[in-house]
């Protein structure tokens, strides 16, 4: 990719960073009565980004859902904009992993992007010209303005993912929370996405995302949290992403051509997780 230099250094701009948006102190997270990860502590300030990295089932999505208030915390402290989670609908944009497929919804691309404005307008308030402009600008940022009136069903999976990301951008939220946002994106889509996130950070928004992409997305972030049912490491990417820490997070690390290629271990963590899931399903 041509513009990788842009993404090597966290946030390519000079917005002052001050206010604390997100703070966790010895936070325990999990589902129902089962703790998935214990003792998570971190601070996310205005204009900063943090990437959660780990295998499937390592607790990334659980942490994101706890931050937005869908899941309750199981211990410790968590504050979002200085308040308990679930109290800042207007300031948080969320893109989960398991939404309905665009192939089943009778919607145009622009309708789905416009849904990003709903948290700001609630049940009643009408959407105005300014909203239309913001929606179109978000589509343009993701390179899909020409698809605005296209049926969502007629788009490819990668194009649909761009629509979902445009929806997040259209919110113009203070905190963007995304679960594996680059799923299905092609190289062009990833580049647009990385630039968009850089712009969001410069605007003063904060970002927390779960990702497998340790090369580009993580490099864009100020902090990286490696998760493997526990916090393996947290800190600036260049300090945290050591071969040892990545080995512990993913199972296998292969180094070469100045890049770290991370392979998910098929027989280690995954099997343990699967067994863990089976255990959870049993009454």
């Amino acid at each position: 990719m041509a513009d990788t230099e842009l993404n090597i250094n966290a946030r390519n701009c000079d917005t002052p960073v001050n206010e604390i948006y997100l703070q966790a102190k010895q936070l325990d997270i999990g589902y129902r009565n089962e703790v998935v990860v214990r003792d998570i502590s971190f601070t996310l300030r205005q204009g900063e980004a943090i990437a959660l990295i780990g295998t499937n089932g390592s607790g990334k999505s659980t942490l994101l859902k706890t931050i937005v208030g869908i899941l309750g915390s199981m211990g410790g402290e968590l504050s979002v904009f200085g308040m308990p989670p679930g109290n800042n609908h207007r300031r948080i944009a969320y893109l989960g992993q398991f939404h309905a497929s665009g192939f089943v919804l009778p919607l145009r691309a622009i309708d789905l992007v416009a849904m990003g404005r709903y948290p700001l307008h609630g049940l009643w308030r009408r959407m105005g010209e300014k909203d239309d402009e913001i929606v179109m600008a978000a589509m343009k940022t993701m390179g899909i303005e020409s698809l605005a009136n296209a049926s969502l069903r007629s788009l490819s999976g990668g194009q649909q993912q761009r629509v979902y990301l445009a929806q997040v951008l259209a919110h113009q939220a203070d905190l963007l929370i995304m679960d594996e946002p680059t799923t299905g994106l092609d190289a062009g889509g990833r580049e647009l996405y990385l630039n968009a996130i850089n712009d969001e950070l410069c605007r003063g928004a904060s970002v927390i995302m779960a990702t497998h992409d340790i090369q580009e997305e993580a490099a864009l972030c100020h902090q990286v949290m490696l998760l493997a049912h526990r916090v393996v490491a947290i800190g600036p990417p260049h300090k945290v992403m050591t071969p040892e820490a990545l080995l512990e997070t993913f199972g296998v690390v292969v180094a070469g051509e100045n890049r770290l290629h991370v392979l998910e271990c098929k027989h280690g963590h995954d099997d343990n997780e699967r067994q863990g899931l089976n255990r959870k399903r049993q009454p």
Partner: protein
Amino acid sequence: MVQALLAGTLVSIACAIAGTFVILRGLAFIGDAIGHGVLPGIALAILFGFHGIIGAAVSALFMIGGITLITQRSRLSSDTAIGLLFVGMLSLGVVIVSRSSSFSGDLTRILFGEILGISRIDILIQLGATIIIAAIAIICARPFLLLSFDPEQAEVAGFSVRLFHNIMLFMIAITVVVSFQTVGTLLVFGLLIAPAGAGALLARRIKAMMLWAAIFGIISMYIGLLVSYHFNLAAGASIILVAVSIFFIVFIIQNLRHRRTGNQKDIIHG
């Protein structure tokens, strides 16, 4: 006949709105269960001299409450809760009916509908219900859309999933309750999903899906009534057969069209 057509039109509009969300939210099973589960309420209402709609409404509310309670208080999926109440209520209805000898004519009417016997009061009730259903769909358009996309996103956006999901169930229940007279409790589910299903194949906006569903529903009513009148067939079943046929006609035409455009694409790319 005019009253039958008027009732058919109102019911088609109500079912188009509710059916659209039944399909988008994947609530087909609960729609079916409410349709069948209203039987004991109707039977008891007739037994004690009330209007069948009152009994149906009480049954439907009881079912929604029961499904919500079992799903929340146990680790069972909502499918299991729905299935339990479905068969439980249906068998209760059959038990009540079988204990009373005065039901023979009424039972056929409940199960298969009696669109030609609809009174002016019934039509007024259906009109009121259709207005309420349309109002709910307009007021809750945003949360209903978010719920259809991703319930978690709806919650994060500040729309309580529990509240708006229950409002949606309530809307479906009202639709079933005022529609069962036209095609009967056995087939009312068909009016919820067949026209909206055909609409889903054609539309690229939710409003268009509802509009298509209403048009297909009304056409089904008219053709179904005509066919049943001329060939002396059961009216309710004829209406549903037409509705389901329309779905398959739309489905086949869509597939043929896609195949043709798909082939053209292949030629271009080839």
